[in-house]
């Protein structure tokens, strides 16, 4: 008989509000201890020190409005956070500072998280955020905040609001591509430079809640409020097509994360559980049952050594659980 799943390695308490988003920052050993950033419903961003397992700093920049996306840029010091106050804040945390250095006002009131592409020229990076129009996505060049383009589906497409974004640079081409999951359950692949849609795939009946994409395999997966995960792939002609469907026991996938080594996928379920799958064949590996309310987000650490790869999940029950699974090299 199979072993029972392991318990969490440790649990971070003290967010004092539902945890909406998580982001690891552990790559630069020299700069400091590994950190975990979390954004909460109360509008605070917590910076957790993973060595002491305590809060290092609390950032308050969204006027008490829920923070639903945090992301570091390049090194640990630059942090992006997106909140319900229609603001995207840029923080520089070096030397203990804790005030936003810059902010960008957003036009969309949706829950769509942004996406950044920081590869390329030093200091500048691309940011995709939901745009002003209902179904638009805006791509900006940062930090100059100049608009690169606005991507809007054709008039008759009826795609609805964008729900999740993924900006990435293909290995074979110079121009960045953007994957967008829409409210009607369809996925669209955009060429940012040419501002045109390359492919569209309707893969869910319900709005796409989350997506994950692995550029190395040209393969991704998406979840919605249904009881199924879809895996799809991108062929040479940049067409999206469905590879397989993984049925789930309970409906609702809030977040998806692919481990940096491309071996494991984790999903955050509305059913309080984290599910782990093998990324190659989507073989179900484990169901981690710790939280007592819906899990909002999952994140994998970007640590170099396999034995140090961590999985964190944040839940409505105000806890962040940190797991160490499938770490044997």
């Amino acid at each position, binding site marked *: *008989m*199979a*072993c*029972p*799943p*392991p318990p969490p390695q440790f649990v971070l308490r003290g967010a004092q509000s539902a945890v909406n988003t998580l982001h690891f920052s552990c790559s630069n050993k020299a700069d400091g201890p590994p950190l975990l950033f979390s954004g909460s419903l109360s509008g605070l961003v917590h910076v957790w020190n993973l060595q002491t397992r305590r809060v290092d700093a609390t950032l308050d920049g969204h006027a008490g409005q829920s923070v639903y996306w945090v992301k570091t840029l390049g090194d640990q010091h630059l942090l992006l956070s997106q909140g319900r106050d229609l603001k995207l804040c840029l923080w520089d945390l070096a030397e203990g500072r804790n005030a936003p250095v810059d902010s960008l006002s957003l036009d969309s009131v949706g829950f769509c998280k942004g996406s950044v592409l920081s590869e390329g020229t030093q200091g500048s990076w691309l940011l995709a955020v939901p745009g002003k129009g209902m179904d638009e996505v805006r791509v900006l060049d940062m930090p100059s905040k100049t608009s690169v383009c606005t991507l809007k589906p054709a008039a008759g497409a009826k795609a609805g609001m964008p729900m999740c974004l993924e900006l990435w640079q293909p290995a074979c081409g110079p121009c960045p591509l953007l994957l967008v999951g829409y409210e009607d359950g369809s996925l669209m692949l955009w060429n940012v430079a040419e501002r045109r849609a390359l492919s569209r795939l309707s893969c869910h009946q319900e709005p796409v809640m989350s997506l994950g994409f692995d550029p190395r395999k040209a393969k991704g997966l998406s979840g919605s409020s249904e009881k199924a995960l879809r895996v799809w792939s991108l062929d040479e002609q940049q067409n999206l097509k469905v590879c397989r469907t993984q049925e789930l*026991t*309970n409906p609702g996938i809030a977040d998806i994360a692919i481990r940096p080594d491309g*071996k*494991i996928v984790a999903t955050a379920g509305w*059913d*309080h*559980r984290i599910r782990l*799958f*093998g*990324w*190659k*064949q*989507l*073989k*179900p*590996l*484990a*169901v981690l*049952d710790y939280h007592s309310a819906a899990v909002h987000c999952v994140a994998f650490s970007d640590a170099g050594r396999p034995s140090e790869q961590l999985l964190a999940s944040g839940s409505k029950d105000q806890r962040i659980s940190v797991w160490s699974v*499938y770490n044997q090299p």
Partner: protein
Amino acid sequence: MDPEVSEVRHTVQEALHTLSSSRDGIQISKALTSMKLYLNGVQNTVLPREREEFCKIYFSTFLRCLVNKLSPDWLELLPTGQLEELWDSFFLEGPADQAFLVLMESIIVIAGPSYRLMKMAQVLTKFLKMGRLAELMWEMCQQQVPRGSSLLQETLLNKVVCLPDHLSNQMKEQSPSLFFPQNYFPLLGEEIIQVLQRISDSLRGGLDCSISFLSQIVAKVCIHGRQKEILGVLVPRLMELTQADCIWQRLSWRLVESVPDRGMEAVVSGLIQEASEAKVLSQLLGNLVMKNKKAQFVVTRKFLLLQYRYPTEVLQNLLGYLALDSHRRTLLLQVLKDLLETWGSSSVVKHSPVEQQFYVSKAILICLSHLKESEIEHIREELLTSMMGGVQCHIESSLPQVRHLGMIVAETISSRIHSEGPHLKFQYEENKLTRELLSLVNLKPADASSPASGFPAVPASVIQPSSLSPEGKAHREEEKDKGSASDLDSDDEFVPYDMSRDKELKSTKAPVYIRDCLEALTTSEDVERWEVTLQVLESLIKRSPAATKEVSKELAKVLLHLEEKTSMEGFEMLRQRALVAVTVTDPIQVAQYLTSQFYAMNYSLRQRMDILDVLVLAAQELSSPKSLEEAKILGPSRPDIQLLPAPQTPSLNKVPSEDWRKIVEERIKNKTRRFGKGPSRTDTANGPNKFNSVVGYFFFPLIERFDRPLVTFDLLGDDSLVLGRLVHTVGILMYFAINTTAAVPMGKTLLEFVWALRFHTDAYVRQGLLYSISSVLWSVPAERLLGDLTDELLETRSWLAVVAENDPDEDCRKLAMQALLLMEKLKDKLQIVGS
């Protein structure tokens, strides 16, 4: 008197005289040579008439004389074995029948091993090796049945067939291996083929021959039980020869047809068993079954209805043979009707062994697979009627195998009657028996006799295998799925964790108090709340025994009457566990309630059986020395109602699977020697037997009212299944009562109960009774058994002996044997104590 004839006579007499009186080698040799002229002399020296006369009248006398003279020094009268050679030649070259008879005769009369015996056996060996037997049979076949020679024929027949017996009687272990039956009869078979070859040649030449002697030989050999040896040679050879040649074909039919009546059965059954496929049988037997009553009886009744020891292939060959020819198909229909009549007869279902019923069912399925649509059309009504009757009495049976037989046969019949539209469909689990039967359903006859017959596809064959095992199908699909991905691209490097707890999320909160549960189960309209309640009920009961005791009876009542509102997974098991937990928590109250309800009105049989199950499980838990918490999870109750959670009696092999580990550990412990100092530590759990004080409440109310029928519930009548369960239950309770004070009165009551039911017709009830006896022997202390229960024990013992010998059910016989063994052991134990 004819001068030539008298000359022959004169010569022979002279030679005989010489032989008997002379010790001169040359003289003797001369006399013998003169005799030999009559056998194979040149044409002009001996007239044919003289030769014939010699052969007919004097030859055997002469041979006898030769035998009498046989001794080592007599043969040495002439040097270099000339005389011996001459002596042998008379036997090997003269008329085979007489030579053979004289040889056999003289071998039989010789007392004890001697030189003469060895010499005769040697000659006989040569005789056989030279193929003289074929000569002998050929001679008999040529004679146009002369009336007078029937005696000779009879004698020859006897001697030919019984040769191995005679030889081994005389020679004991010195008998040459050629005379062993396993060597002799194949030789005989070869010789018969030789003779048949000659007969076919002579038939082609326009000469008439009789084959009946050969038939008689074959028949007699078969009657002697040597079918395998002789037919093993004959069948393949005949198969080869009859393939292309119509004379051979007729010859082989004739060979079987001329078999005398008393040998017919042996020959036909031998052929049926020896034939490798239906076509062979058809070629060898032809339409014999239509012509010969005896053969018909053997094929249509004896093989199918009276015996049941043959393997399935034999059945397939037999029925395939009937189906191969249009004339015989009428017989096939008749056979099917007879089989169905037997299958559908309730008395057969009740009284014949399961193996035979299995055999008959197989035959029915094979028959059905051979029938064409048009033929089924004709007998549709009859099929329907017999199916209806049959399926009812099968399903009523309390033995699961019998029920399965009924279900599968009925399904097949219904799918054949109505090739379109809905079929009967039963639920049964897959096991060895059902698989074997279903494989017969899906069988296609090897090839239909005429290409025009156009055998219709059996619809059942398409539907059943897939519908039988959805899991299997899913599994296959999964494998196919896996097959498409390359090995490199698999997630096998990660071992999955246990995901069995990944259930659907329930939004309702589980109740925390027993009284809430009661309320939720009785009044709640909220299905989810109801399900959640049932899921937590067992653990709640165990956690709060005091609160449970306050409402134990109501709770038991609610649970007993609980019906499955939704198709909830594991409903039966949850309900049962909860009931068991209640019973364990408050044994007296609840056991009293349950046992009284067992005989109450307005319960379904299912509920009554549930009561029995709960009592047994509760008794097990109470009597086990482990504490309640440790003993909790009993594993899923199995759907098979035959499987009661039986106790771990070593004498019974019905061990519940949960306990296998314990048993293995115990065995290892017994076989392992440990060396150590100081007192050995015992780590077995111990505590007071909680069952001791309450066992009476479980046992006596159950047993005292079985003979009072209610309107809806008649234990001694139709509801023998429940009676069987009741008997098993009291047996198990008896077993758990070991080491309790109530064991002795319980044993006494139980033995009386068994005595009252001992001639019950249902095998399942009898099994229960036998099991109960075993548990009485096991649980009641030996001294008390002999002291208080002597009379009952003696009665029981004689009944056990009868059952062990005569019961039609195999399990009953085994159980009776086990009980008898237990009794023997008991006796030994008492003797040891006494001495």
